[in-house]
């Protein structure tokens, strides 16, 4: 009963199953030929970013002060693994709270780890939704997020 198949029948069955698999393969690709494409034509069509997208950081404007809450403590600058943050701040008059004037970030070196956002004692940092980061010079990637906040007003 269970005689092992001869090499010749093996040869023939291999050709038959092989041809069948090839036809099935063609059928699968033919189906995809007529399905809808999944890509977008980028500069003309754009996708919406999720709110959690990580662009470079930016300052949050709070409703109570109509501006950010940065006190120029410099914790973000110290925790940053790539040392790309520089904060400048000062006091308007003696006895007043310290206030951040300039906040420079070179985001071409930023690894988007989010430590600055997590460590900020005033929670005034967040990730922006900026993803078109193309510039002519490396210096263009150094931005002042405080003046960016002013401009966006």
């Amino acid at each position: 009963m269970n005689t092992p198949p001869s090499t010749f029948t093996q040869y023939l069955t291999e050709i038959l199953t092989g041809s069948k698999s090839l036809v099935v393969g063609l059928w699968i690709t033919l189906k995809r030929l007529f399905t809808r494409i999944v890509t977008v034509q980028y500069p003309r069509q754009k996708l919406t970013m999720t709110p959690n997208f990580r662009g470079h950081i930016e300052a949050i404007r709070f409703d109570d002060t109509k501006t950010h809450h940065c006190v120029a403590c410099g914790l973000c600058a110290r925790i940053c693994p790539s040392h790309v943050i520089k904060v400048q701040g000062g006091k308007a008059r003696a006895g007043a709270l310290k206030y951040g004037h300039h906040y420079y970030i070179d985001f071409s070196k930023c690894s988007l780890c989010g430590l600055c956002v997590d460590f900020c004692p005033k929670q005034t940092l967040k990730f922006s939704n900026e993803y078109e980061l193309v510039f002519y010079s490396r210096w263009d990637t150094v931005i002042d997020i405080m003046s960016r906040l002013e401009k966006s007003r």
Partner: protein
Amino acid sequence: MNITQLPYLKDIYAFLGSDVMSGMVGLLIIAAIVPLNVAFLVLVERKVAGHIQLRPGPMEVGPHGILQTLIDAVKLLGKEMVTPQSTDKLIFFLAPIIVVAPAFVGFVPIPFSPMMQVKDVNVGILLIFAFSSISVISILMAGWSSNNKYSLIGAVRSVAQNVAYEIPLLLATMSVIIMTNTFKMGEIVQAQSSVWFIFYQPLAAMIFFIATTAETNRAPFDLVEAESELVSGFHTEYTGMRFSLFFLAEYTNMVIAAAMFTVLFLGGWYGPLFPGMIWFLIKTYFLIFVVMWARWTYPRIRFDQLMNFAWKVLIPFALVNLLLTAIVLKVV
């Protein structure tokens, strides 16, 4: 005075009607059509590939990117033709020229319709086979002269592959030839006015199709350029227009192969409603589409498997088929 009575005009008319003139006009038409046809086919290939892979393919130049290949051709014309320092300069220069010439000659005996044929050579099929063998030499020349290991491996593969696959190709053709008793392509088509030969000779048709795919170095038999192993095989070192001549030859060979299949098995220009020319083109382009479709579906065969497939599968089956055809013809 009646112009037609001028004595030398008779000679001119005789010359215009002669074979030489019709041959020249035909070749000129071929020379004009072939590059345009290739430009179209490259676009079709990219569109087919794109849509199979769920993307639109070229979309930028012209509506739906139909001018893309023309722009590419212009770009390639403008590119510098780099000749690497350690190449064999003469052979490196000659290879792309030699690869294109037989591709043009291949169009001569193909009957697009009863009237549209440059010349119905009485050994038309053999002519195409003879000239298509020349392209192997040019690939070997390109691979050898490039002085690049990848190119050389590709070229050596190409020679072995072409030699192996010409045998089943000719055997499959022979089974049609012994049914029609002619090498003339026009007469082969006329023999199929009622029934196409693909119904008499399905096995020969399949073998012919596979073997021509291998002869034209198309996937899954594209070992010659195998980009995942050999970068781009024998034309790795070629740039600019020389590179595009190899492209031109590849696609033209594909058209010739599809046209031969149409002539031998699909009844050439025969078909209802439309004129013969249209039917011929429909059949040819459908076959080309199938070849492209297969390219974007299958992985590539390995070198030893390619040889095994030719010698252990295709050639035995082609021989058996030829033998059966001969017996049946003798008996009937």
